[in-house]
């Protein structure tokens, strides 16, 4: 239960980090909060030759409003976002989802962008990113690009990130007038990974839900408004459309039932805070 040996750089600037990621190519890995990576190192499920620590880069530690978007840098820890005074006003969905991520002790170190890069299919932040249709700002030594949430997650712990590439920041659209948000999760215990988690975004004219913990990545669907009698059928179709599987935590059937019930409850709760 000890990591294999690796080279380590505590980068002082983003350029320094990008240089080494470029030079080492596929052998290098970013370390941010370490709350997912270090367990994998300890169990030797990951054996990177080089680790690039980005947590001492001051420029990455910012939470900033840019137009209607909130930009969250790669150095922002989950606890820092939780303590951001504007969180409930600007990102109500994220405010609801954050307390479900692990424990106080892991949120003190884990980052927002690290959770997105890790892309666990049941994780709350990837779910929030998909529900809100945010964007990832990716960067290599040579180029920058912005990738939409729907194009970022490719499967179980697989993302669009290429060799030498890192997430510099994520941007999430700020709460808009006349929009309600809902979030619910079922797990074995609070702080465990979700068996199923649901996020809903509802306006006067449209509703959508995003679901984590069922398919190999979080997925989003447009659904009828809660007042529409077709909602239950739509949720049932979604439940079957997701590739639910049995595992030690729950059966596929139970997960489909959660999609139907938790889905409706979450949409109704989102609609209720529309006023």
């Amino acid at each position, binding site marked *: 239960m000890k*990591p294999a040996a690796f080279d380590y750089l505590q980068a002082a600037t983003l350029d320094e980090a990008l240089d080494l990621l470029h030079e080492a190519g596929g052998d290098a890995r970013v370390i941010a909060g370490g709350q997912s990576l270090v367990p994998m*190192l300890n169990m030797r499920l990951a054996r990177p030759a080089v680790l690039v620590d980005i947590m001492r880069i001051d420029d990455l530690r910012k939470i900033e409003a840019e137009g209607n978007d909130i930009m969250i840098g790669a150095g922002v820890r989950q606890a820092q976002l939780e303590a951001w005074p504007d969180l409930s006003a600007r990102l109500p969905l994220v405010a609801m989802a954050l307390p479900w991520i692990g424990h106080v002790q892991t949120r003190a170190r884990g980052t927002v962008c690290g959770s997105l890069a890790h892309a666990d299919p049941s994780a709350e932040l990837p779910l929030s990113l998909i529900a809100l249709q945010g964007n990832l700002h990716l960067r290599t030594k040579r180029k920058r690009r912005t990738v939409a949430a729907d194009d970022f997650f490719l499967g179980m712990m697989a993302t669009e990130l290429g060799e030498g590439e890192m997430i510099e920041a994520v941007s999430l659209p700020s709460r808009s007038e006349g929009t309600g948000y809902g979030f619910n999760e079922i797990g074995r215990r609070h702080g465990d990974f979700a068996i199923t988690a649901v996020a809903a975004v509802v306006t006067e004219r449209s509703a959508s839900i995003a679901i984590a913990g069922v398919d190999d990545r979080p997925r989003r669907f447009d659904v009828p408004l809660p007042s529409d009698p077709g909602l239950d059928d739509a949720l049932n179709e979604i439940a079957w459309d997701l590739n639910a599987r049995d595992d030690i935590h729950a059966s596929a059937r139970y997960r489909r039932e959660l999609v139907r019930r938790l889905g409706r409850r979450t949409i109704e709760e989102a609609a209720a805070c529309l006023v």
Partner: protein
Amino acid sequence: MSRLKAHQKKTVTFRLNGLPVRADAESRTLLSDFIRHEIGMTGTHVGCEHGVCGACTIQVDGAPARACLMLAVQAEGTDIRTVEALSPGDDRLSALQAAFKRHHGLQCGFCTPGILMSLDALIGARPDAGREEVRDHLSGHLCRCTGYATIVEAALSALDDIRREDNDNV
């Protein structure tokens, strides 16, 4: 900082329980092992080494964190507290420790140092905390002996004592 090569050692310096400490670590040395084996402070326990059990919980710059999920080199320049910091003097217990003793908040004691460090951080940050918050902080810890009820009672009783003390001092 320049790149630290695999197997190469670097001197790591930080504050531990108020005093400066320094010792050598490889890049892969876990902070939990560094504190126990290099510094020689064995109050911090190690259970699972993958972040789940909470036995290794310490405070890093005031916030509770898993020592087994940090590299020693990441602790450079930080301010760290471990369970050894809690007692106010030889043969004396802090309010929290005394409450654990009174309420049988421990049996084998393996989980205790980590739990104390989480609860100490909670008490420091939120002296008005109630049962829900105590339980939320404990969710990051596994205890195989007590069934948790006595730990919750101990924490609530310590919070009471500390609030009363604060009132007396007004």
